[in-house]
């Protein structure tokens, strides 16, 4: 199946994005990259060490780095972290995270959209992490985002697609790719997001905190692929409830005969 995901001028064949946080050892990262088949990996600039390879040194050369602005509380701080990422050689893709709530780690839509606007002007490929809010998504699109990254559930919760209805609306309404980011805890949930028409999924906690991250990475690889194939194949319509009489409310019209027979 020839299914390419164009993002920021790059043609991706994998629709699973992965992360670098929460592993028991950074040395696991190369094996997770291989098992997941992912081509994009996010890394928090707060974890990147100056003047040494550190965490980035464990990321295989073929992976596209997606530095993120974790720790930023305002648009300005996100801009500074993005500039630092580019200066550190992490490229011009940036996952914009602007969070000023330490209880639930929910993103600030207004500051995020502002950061998108500022960073797009500086030629970044901006990928904003947002609540699945149509207005925020539109603001980000208007500001030049390359995709939007709505959360399925709060970061780290592994609670799945709690925001399914809202993500469905974004997929329906937005012309930008929708990459479901936080909250996916099981491969089946990633599969479900892909079946709905998400362009990709980003999964970190569920892989990194599994007993065997490499096997979990493989499971997510297959789930994302299966969900995508199902979406492309065209899912059959679901029918709720049991079998029904063909026209329970309008059947009486048959009694009139003739011209209404096609009811």
């Amino acid at each position, binding site marked *: 199946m020839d299914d390419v995901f164009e993002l920021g001028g790059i043609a991706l064949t994998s629709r699973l994005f992965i992360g670098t946080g929460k592993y028991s050892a950074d040395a696991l990262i190369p094996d997770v990259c291989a098992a997941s088949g992912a081509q994009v990996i996010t890394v928090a600039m707060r974890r990147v060490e100056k003047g040494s390879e550190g965490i980035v040194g464990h990321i295989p050369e073929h992976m596209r780095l997606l530095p993120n602005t974790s720790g930023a509380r305002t648009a300005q701080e996100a801009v500074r*972290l993005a500039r630092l990422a580019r200066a550190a050689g992490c490229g011009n893709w940036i996952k914009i995270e602007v969070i000023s709530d330490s209880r639930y780690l929910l993103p600030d839509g207004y500051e995020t959209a502002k950061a998108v606007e500022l960073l797009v002007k500086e030629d970044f490929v901006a990928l904003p992490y947002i609540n699945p809010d149509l207005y925020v998504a539109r603001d980000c699109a208007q500001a030049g985002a390359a995709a939007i990254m709505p959360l399925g559930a709060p970061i780290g919760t592994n609670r799945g697609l709690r925001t399914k209805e809202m993500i469905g609306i974004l997929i329906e309404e937005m012309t930008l790719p929708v990459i479901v980011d936080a909250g996916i805890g099981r491969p089946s949930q990633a599969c479900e997001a892909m079946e709905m028409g998400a362009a990709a999924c980003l999964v970190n906690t569920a892989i990194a905190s599994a007993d065997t991250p490499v096997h979990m990475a493989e499971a997510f690889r297959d789930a994302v692929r299966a969900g995508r194939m199902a979406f492309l194949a065209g899912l059959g319509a679901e029918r709720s409830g049991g079998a029904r009489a063909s026209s329970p409310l309008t059947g009486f019209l048959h009694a009139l005969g003739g011209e209404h027979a096609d009811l």
Partner: protein
Amino acid sequence: MQTFEQLLAAWSRERRQDCYAAATRDAVLAVLEKEILRPQDFMLLLSPAATQCLEAMAARAHDLTLRYFGRAVHLFTPLYLSDICTNQCRYCGFNASNTQQRHHLTVEQALSEAKVIAHMGLQHILLLTGDARHVASPQYIGAVAERIKPYFASIGIEVYSMTTEEYAFLVSKGIDAMTMFQETYDPALYEWLHPAGPKRDYAWRLDAPSRAAAAGLRSVGIGALLGLDDFFQDAFCTGLHAWWLQKTYPAVDIGLSVPRMCPHEGSFAVPHPVDDIHFVQYVTALRCFLPRSPITVSSRESAFMRDHLVPLGITRVSAGVSTAVGGRVEQNDNVGQFEIADHRSVAAMQRALADNGYQAVLKDWEDCSVLPQIAPEESSVLCEHGGR
């Protein structure tokens, strides 16, 4: 908005005692099924009834820690700048009435010590002083921070209570974190424990974390010194304080420390020693109540205890610790603030964590509020050379 003093007053000592007495095992198990815990739920987890449910509490604490922090533990180390102190805290090695020789590092001496710490690979440092503004003034602490900043990703302080303006001044010098130990939340006991010095002012200290958060510090840590008051009292008040701070300052990372006194510290007989069972109960209850809060355990605890607490909720540990002033550049026998039980170096701690299935994180902060502005043109040029 309700102040913390008002909230604490609403949870009087008598009310707390009644709640503890009424707690049952079933009520504790019901709390463990809840999604979001309220202060009354936290109290149940700390109750005597909950000691029968430790394994279930530990399981939930482990699961939450794994979800929000993964298998990563953040390392830091303290740098004692000065042991000159005007307080007479009955339990402290720096008590002003103690007759040992006192030491105070110059800014340049502090830099030398800090370089040794940076050389160990640590990027998070905690600066400590006694309570002596005439020598360890906010200006002095700010000058040290400014001087050592190039070597560290994060600089924290654990010093005397300051005004909001003083905290804001330290933020401008590159300090991003502060820790303030209330020691005990019981005002009468507090007064007895602190017979002289500026620290006698209970309410001023109680409000210090709030002032620090308001001043722009990104990370604020609190803790009671376990062993001073009845465990159930101070354990609850500490969690309640953190919960209130988190609600009041949602943008600030509110952390907890769990220092526990040995049964005998110097000549001070610890009034309410906390045993290991209650200590584990405390850590797991805190994790269940405040799932995303960092929890620090210091080198007061043994290597054995620290290693076993990591899976239960501890996310920060110190390593390569000296609690004496100036112990790193020139080895000396200066008196430390407290007895260290875990002497492991940074490398040894990294190995121990790895053996336990955890990764030591040496850098977990980038101070984006004070980063030098990099011109877009300049960063684009660098990108051409290094971008992938």
